[in-house]
């Protein structure tokens, strides 16, 4: 297992945004996470990536306890992530955006290799023609690919994508997904994706997790997710669902 959480919990005031979630991700798989708005998906990402410490519980990355590492340190351990709101370093061009990942990520210190490495990433994601474009005026799809490139440039082993395909057209979703598959296959990077569109997630994931109200609802085979009674109830509502909280 490349990533494992044990009883991960985060409370803001009285509200438990993430409540006692334990799950593991295997090396080399694509792992999907879904759930309604406010279910705690992004909070989960933020805890794993060291953006804020969990209230309780532990995070292990390659058998090492990284629960209390800060975000830049988890990055240098090999965890990269993207954010829901896609914003680049707006005063820098595409190349420099990627250079930051390469310079401060796991490659840090190895100056000779960095230039080649950046070119490799640019080539891998097909960003050659945009290399020296300003990163502000890019269209949504290119912005997200640039951010993906910056994350990959850190030489990560685990890539966490937070709703990467929101706002995409069908064609863009297809080509982004093929990038994700390529990353897994050719770079052998484990990928976790948060995504609203269940059908897409089912299609791309090896395993899936559904969370609701901060709690784990379903973990397992993507194909069977729509057959799970509780998942259907959360997504479509139902008379006899008893899983609510918060009152």
């Amino acid at each position: 297992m490349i990533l494992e959480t044990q009883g991960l919990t985060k409370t803001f005031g009285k509200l438990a945004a993430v409540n006692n979630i334990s799950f593991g991700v295997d090396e080399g798989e694509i792992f999907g996470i879904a759930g309604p708005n406010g279910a705690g998906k992004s909070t989960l990402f933020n805890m794993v990536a060291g953006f804020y410490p969990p209230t309780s519980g532990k995070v292990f990355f390659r058998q090492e306890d990284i629960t209390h590492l800060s975000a830049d340190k988890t990055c240098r351990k090999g965890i990269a992530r993207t954010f829901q709101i896609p914003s680049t370093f707006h005063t820098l061009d595409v190349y420099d955006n990627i250079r930051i990942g390469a310079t401060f990520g796991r490659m840090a210190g190895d100056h000779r290799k960095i230039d080649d490495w950046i070119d490799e990433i640019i080539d891998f994601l097909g960003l050659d023609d945009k290399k020296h474009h300003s990163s502000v005026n890019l269209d949504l799809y290119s912005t997200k690919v640039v951010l993906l490139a910056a994350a990959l440039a850190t030489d990560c082993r685990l890539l966490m994508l937070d709703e990467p395909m929101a706002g995409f057209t069908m064609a863009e979703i297809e080509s982004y997904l093929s990038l994700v598959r390529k990353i897994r296959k050719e770079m052998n990077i484990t990928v976790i994706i948060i995504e609203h569109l269940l059908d897409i997630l089912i299609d791309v994931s090896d395993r899936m997790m559904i969370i609701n109200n901060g709690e784990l609802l379903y973990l397992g085979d993507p194909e069977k997710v729509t057959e799970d009674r509780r998942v259907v109830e959360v997504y479509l509502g139902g008379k006899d669902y008893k899983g609510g909280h918060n009152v």
Partner: protein
Amino acid sequence: MFEIKDLCSAYGDIQVLYNIDLHIDEGEVVALFGPNGHGKSTLLKAISAVHPARSGSILFKGQEIAKTPAHKIVELGIAYIPEERFLFPDMTVMENLNMGAYNLNARKSMAENLEFVFDVFPRLKERRGQLCSTLSGGEARMVAIARGLMCNASMLMVDEPSIGLSPSMKFAVFEAIEKVNREKNLTILIVEQEIEHALRMANRMYQIRKGRILFERKADEIDVKEIEKAYF
């Protein structure tokens, strides 16, 4: 009474709504279904001008309101109860309700509206002196709805009123909304994930997918299987 034509909305570069057409008759309850992130909330935000639309027209009682600022929309009589609630945390329940009646029309009928609100949510009457930051999720949801009812609106837009509530709380909230429609004859546009609940009171429904209206059905034509299919 209410009609939207060719409405488009976007956040920065991300277009969320494409050419939405929709209409609501007086006193009608219309439900809006669709997966998360497909533009339901954005549509309500566009109508209430909290996040104004890029283009298109919105007619309310014959008046074009697509370019009207948010505070005027409330004055005209459209109340918006956002999913995020946006209560005033350091004010009491009573003060929050008072703020609901901020516009001058609502000031006049405040006592009457307050009575109605307390009748619908007796629990709020007990808690009226309590700070909103100390309320439970369900109570906060009630305050949000009650605050929306205080502004003397003729049309109510409710975004996911049942999210994060226990089954009994959900039931109470839906009952309240039904009561509002029945007794005050308010026109209601409701976004809801709980299809079964929402369908019990809706006269009509729209299904949204990827920022477009997929189909429209009257209460007696609705096929739950069809809706479920549109989600997955």
